[in-house]
């Protein structure tokens, strides 16, 4: 980190005002149009040479700075009373943080809040406005502490707080910067979910609070009116007494307050209708709808008191009427003691007042759910970056193979795959059945590096459209679909443009700016700033300029970009059914990129340091951090290569890396620690391959099996060609181990290994054969045993029998060469993890071939009416033998896999019918050692 610190000061030697430690690492969002289709002639990323040697030789050295032992999540608040303070950490274990100064770090992370938190009276409305701010995401580093953090700022509403807002932030703190940079998108996703959950709870709580307040005010109002009436009756002489004037003022205050609160209520309900600019911000539609309807109900209720004069009548009887109507009648009765002074309390600084805790701000359920979600997040990000990354690569690749994944890969977790498939599942604290997915247009995060030329010419039309759209929006009404911060800004601009200087907010635009600063030297930087300042009056122009500028900024490559590109590609390729990303959304984003958001008006709660930020802000780029991002951690678009090739290479690269750090027995500590927890949620069935560790163990025993038995190849062939294999033995442990080992080769073994029965001690039936493809059978010397032998011989045509005790295998003869590669008993592979990768690559290749077979029309159906089934058959055989070079028995493997793919593709997930069981009539031979 010292390196990066030096880099910062070297880059901006003149910046004396710079605050020392928080090295803000800028992320910006690349607009969609930068997504040029990959040049087919360029080398796919996975083939590029990794630039490892340039990085420091000891990859662990830098993390030793950190004063904490492992990554954690920190939630902090900028309290209006005491300033930034940490609230809680996840995991909630003091050991995790060690000597790390949470207070100090809270100050750091709260000081980079770029949210456009404008509060106060706008000149036009006269009422206090709620600021609707999208969350902001920032990565910052603290080189002294050796800490890097993904920081997610959010704002919650509190009626009693200054400006009604309470700024919070959640930070993922890690010692490894790269880890955060590379996981930025996922982090952002998870934290957005958490944030949305908190906010959903908060909006409800806020609406409730408002309701209570309004009730109080109404009551007070009616009391005051009564008093005034009494005074009026008392006579004209008292009309002008000081007391009466005071009363009248109070009454006016209350009325004003009622108006204000009613307006707040209107605002909060408009909050739900507003379109979100933040592409990550997806909330449960049902929750939103519920909350919206609640708010509207309230609005209806309080809209009755339309004018204060009608209210003066209504107020008297309205009290009784309200009692009937109000949801919280009890409260109404309980709190008649409220006085109008309470409203003044808002503007007064009340340091003696107790601020609501986070739990109180949000609904308890929502709070709990959020904490749970964060805990899960923390768990899923545990472990070394390279492990996390390999896993992600693996997932990305598997998503490419949706049709054949079921054969040898475990299903991707639905939730996960949904997330990364470009659809966001809102996290819902109250567990609404979640069918309300929202299409995610993932922002393209670009790490600011040297600019690379990339033409935008491919989408000029689109950009134009975007411009027009944005212009139209800007010219349109404030209450148009534009997001709040945009509208806020518009309002504020009218107020004062001086304040814009120094303020720096909003997730992307700010970062975008930062990026630009980095790419140009400080002097033009100032210019840009000036431009921006002036341009805040004329946004269209700015937007236009920015458009021009972004062109050169867009291209730096990072994994995230590539990953999202991948996503986008995949969306194009695979998600033909789903709707393409809404262009409106992106135009909107583009338009806003040009805006400079101003924040922190006089009432702003955010940190003063913001003012200095524009000058001091630097983009800290750990020099060597850039290098690996470009090459070895990226997943190339697979469309450029054959699927098999695309799969193999990364597997090998990372496989080696992993196995180097892994323990001798093939279980890799770091990896399994993370995967174990990661997949703990997924249902682990009996005999199911749940974790990587188990798989590696299984691979280890497969390796042993392959070395031990010369006919292992035949056994594997049976499994792959769909012939049920019965492992017969007296020793349960041995049989179970062998079954677990061979499960790797059972195609479509099912999520929890449903097609595998590890240990059976009763005679099996035909139904069992249909259900299970691999059976561990107990050898018993008893009447039961004899009936078992009977069933074995009866169904011998359908099964192959591997006798563990006598070391024999009875199965049809296999003479193919396809499996010689993975079942070579003289193999040099020693480690289970290596062997697992070897198996996986082979099986993956097989699956790809089977896919080709299954989806090639002319191999199954006649191309002309003159052809009979025999011609098709001949053609298929020709394809298998000559083009794929497979002999008879090897062809059976492909035919079986192809059949499975066809069935899987055709079959809706749940059919009433039993699966078909295919076999063929061939003689078996007995293999012995």
């Amino acid at each position, binding site marked *: 980190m010292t390196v990066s610190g030096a880099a910062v000061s070297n880059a901006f030697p003149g910046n004396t005002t710079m605050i020392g430690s928080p090295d803000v690492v800028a992320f910006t969002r690349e607009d969609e149009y930068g997504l040029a289709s990959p040049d087919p002639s360029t080398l796919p990323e996975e083939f590029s040479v990794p630039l490892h040697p340039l990085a420091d030789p000891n990859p662990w050295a830098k993390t030793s700075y950190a004063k904490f032992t492992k990554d954690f999540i920190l939630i902090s608040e900028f309290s209006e009373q005491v300033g930034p303070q940490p609230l809680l950490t996840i995991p909630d274990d003091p050991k995790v943080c060690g000597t790390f100064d949470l207070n100090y770090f809270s100050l750091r992370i709260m000081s980079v809040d770029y949210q456009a938190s404008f509060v106060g009276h706008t000149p036009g409305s006269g009422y206090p406005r709620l600021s609707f701010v999208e969350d902001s995401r920032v990565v910052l580093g603290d080189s002294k502490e050796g800490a890097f953090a993904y920081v997610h700022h959010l704002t919650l509403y509190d009626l009693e707080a200054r400006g009604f807002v309470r700024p919070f932030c959640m930070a993922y703190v890690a010692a490894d910067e790269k880890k955060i940079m590379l996981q930025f998108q996922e982090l952002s996703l998870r934290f957005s979910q958490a944030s949305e959950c908190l906010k959903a709870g908060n909006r409800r709580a806020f609406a409730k609070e408002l309701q209570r307040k309004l009730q109080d005010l109404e009551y007070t109002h009616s009391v005051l009116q009564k008093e005034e009436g009494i005074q009026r009756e008392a006579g004209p002489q008292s009309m002008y007494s000081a007391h009466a004037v005071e009363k009248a003022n109070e009454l006016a205050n209350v009325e004003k307050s009622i108006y204000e609160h009613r307006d707040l209520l209107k605002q909060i309900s408009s909050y739900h209708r507003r379109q979100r600019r933040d592409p990550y911000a997806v909330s449960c539609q049902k929750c939103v709808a519920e909350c919206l309807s609640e708010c509207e109900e309230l609005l209806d209720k309080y809209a009755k008191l339309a004018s204060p004069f009608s209210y003066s009548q209504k107020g008297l009887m309205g009290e009784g009427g309200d009692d009937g109507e109000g949801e919280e009648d009890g409260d109404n009765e309980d709190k008649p003691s409220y006085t109008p002074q309470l409203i003044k309390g808002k503007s007064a600084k009340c340091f003696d007042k107790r601020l609501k805790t986070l739990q109180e701000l949000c609904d308890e359920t929502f709070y709990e759910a959020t904490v749970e979600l964060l805990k899960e997040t923390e768990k899923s990000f545990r472990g070394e970056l390279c492990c996390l990354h390999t896993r992600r690569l693996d997932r990305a690749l598997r998503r490419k193979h*949706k*049709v054949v994944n079921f054969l040898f890969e475990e299903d991707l977790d639905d939730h996960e795959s949904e997330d990364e498939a470009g659809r966001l599942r809102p996290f819902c604290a109250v567990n609404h059945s979640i069918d309300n997915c929202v299409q995610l247009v993932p922002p393209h995060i670009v790490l600011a590096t040297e600019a690379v030329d990339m033409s935008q010419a491919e989408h000029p039309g689109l950009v134009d459209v975007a411009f027009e759209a944005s212009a139209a929006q800007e010219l349109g009404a404030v209450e148009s679909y534009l997001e709040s911060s945009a509208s806020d800004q518009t309002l504020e601009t009218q107020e004062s443009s001086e304040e814009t200087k120094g303020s720096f907010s909003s997730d992307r635009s700010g970062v975008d700016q930062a990026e630009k600063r980095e790419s140009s030297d400080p002097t033009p930087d100032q210019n840009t700033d000036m431009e921006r300042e002036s341009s805040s009056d004329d946004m269209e122009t700015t937007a236009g300029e920015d458009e021009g500028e972004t062109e050169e900024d867009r291209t730096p490559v990072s994994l995230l970009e590539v990953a999202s590109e991948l996503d986008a590609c995949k969306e194009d390729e*695979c998600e*033909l*059914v789903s709707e393409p990303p809404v262009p409106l959304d992106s135009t909107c984003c583009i338009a806003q990129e040009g805006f400079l958001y101003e924040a922190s008006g006089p009432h702003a709660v955010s940190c003063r340091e913001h003012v200095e930020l524009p000058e001091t802000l630097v983009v800290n780029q750990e020099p060597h951090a850039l290098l690996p991002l470009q090459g070895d951690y990226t997943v190339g678009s697979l469309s450029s290569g054959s699927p098999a090739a695309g799969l193999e290479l990364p597997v090998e690269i990372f496989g080696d890396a992993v196995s180097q750090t892994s323990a001798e027995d093939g279980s890799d500590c770091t990896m399994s620690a993370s995967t174990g927890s990661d997949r703990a949620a997924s249902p682990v069935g009996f005999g199911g391959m749940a974790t990587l560790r188990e798989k590696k163990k299984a691979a280890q025993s497969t390796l042993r099996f392959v070395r031990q038995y010369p006919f292992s190849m035949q056994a594997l062939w049976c499994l792959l060609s769909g012939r049920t294999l019965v492992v017969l033995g007296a020793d349960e442990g041995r049989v179970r181990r062998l079954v677990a080992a061979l499960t790797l080769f059972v195609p479509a073994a099912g999520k929890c290994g449903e097609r595998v029965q590890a240990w059976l001690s009763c005679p099996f*039936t*035909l*139904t069992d054969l*249909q259900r299970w493809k691999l059976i561990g059978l107990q050898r018993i010397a008893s009447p039961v045993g004899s009936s078992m032998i009977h*069933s074995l011989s*009866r*169904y*011998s*045509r359908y099964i192959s029998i591997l006798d563990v005790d006598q070391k024999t295998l009875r199965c049809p003869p296999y003479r193919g060469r396809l499996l010689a590669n993975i079942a070579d008993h003289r193999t040099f592979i020693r480690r289970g993890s290596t062997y697992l990768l070897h198996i996986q690559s082979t099986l993956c290749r097989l699956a790809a071939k089977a896919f080709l077979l*299954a*989806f090639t*029309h002319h191999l*199954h*159906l006649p191309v002309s009416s003159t052809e009979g*089934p025999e011609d*098709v*058959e001949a053609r298929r055989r020709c394809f298998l033998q000559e083009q794929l070079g497979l002999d008879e028995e090897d062809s059976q493997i492909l035919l079986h896999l192809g*059949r499975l793919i*066809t*069935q899987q*593709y*055709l079959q809706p997930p749940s*059919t*009433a*019918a*039993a*699966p*078909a*069981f*295919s*076999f*063929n*009539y*061939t*003689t*078996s031979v007995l293999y012995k050692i």
Partner: protein
Amino acid sequence: MLRWFLGGREAQSSVERSGVLSIGEEQPRNCFTELQVLKGHFDIVRFLVQIDDFRCASAGDDGLVLVWNIETGERLQELRGHAQQITAIIAFTCEASAHTALITASSDRSVSLWDPDSGNRVQTVSDLQSSVKCLLGLERLCLWVSGGEELCVWSKDFQLRCLHQKHGDSGVTALIELPKNHLAAAVDREIVIYRLTLSEDSDVSLTKIRCLSDHRDQIRALINVNDRLFASGSHAGELILWDAVDWNNLKYEHILWEESQPGAQSEIRMKAPRPSEMSIQHLTTNGQLILAAVGSGLYVYDLQSKSVAAYRKAAHDSNVLHTLLLSDSELMSCSEDGSVRIWEIQDLPLPAEPASAGFFGTWTFSRSHKQSAPQSKKVTDFPNTRKLELIGDLIGHSGAVQMFVSFGEDGLVTCSADHLLILWKDGERQSRLRSQALFQKLEENGGL
């Protein structure tokens, strides 16, 4: 008494003696390479009825009737209503409506009409005097006949039209329709011919016309062969061909398996065969051939040459329960031993080889001697007798295979005492069909 001595060649008989007739696992001509186990019954499944091209109904001792889609293996309907085992089931298509319904009879002395499309019980008659043992649909007349201790004629809406009382202890065990509105009913050892008279006001009356009592033992099977012939088989192995119009006995065959082993072994074996070994369990025909399940053996009778075409005494390890002629040369049988076997009638490969070591005798009845005892006796060798060669077997059931229904190239359904049905299919054809469906779906989806 004329006899059949069926033995066969040395090799063959040795195979038979050991009781293991196996063709091994190499069965290139067996096209049933895919199976689906259909579960749903809780007791022995005894009956299978084809409803239409793709549906069949199964019924058994659990009183359940299940309707299956044999293309997908789905269970379409579950017809519940009978309290006890099903004793008879037919698919009944009244010519007027052209809608196929199911009529079931149960030991609970009720008969029901079901709609297999909706699964509803459309009609039901309960509290019959006795349980119905057999059913016959007269589709032309929109009537159906139930046979038990009494013989009843019903209209399609379950109105009793005619009742014929008491047929001895055993009652009517089998019913067939004969030309000119006649019925033949098997009652113990006799075949009773009835005439069905339909009067103008749709009154129906049954008149007993003739009682054919040529069989020496209980009649087990009664089938129509063609418009002119019907056949019956008895527990004692007698196969009689009857004229369908004037009910004369055209041919009497008494099938008795006997070993023709020389030497000491034959002495030991020279004992009267147990009746079950020669009981005719099932008869089937395709118009040219009659296939009889005799004990655990198969017997093919050629109607044109009025002689045995082929036979195999030990076709199964245990009694054959149901047979089917797939074509002129292929047939299928299922047995209590749990297997289904596919046979081919093959010419003997070498003329030099003794055609048959067995003997068989026939009584040939001339038309003039309708009743009574055999007139002539001759022992003949049939050098042109062909052999039954096993070309495939289907192993799957763990209990006696009670019955099967063939849907041609769409597959075969077998039902068994192990409570299961198995749907056997041609794997090649199925995979072709699936590929077709796959590309259709691809096209519909516009890609993957």
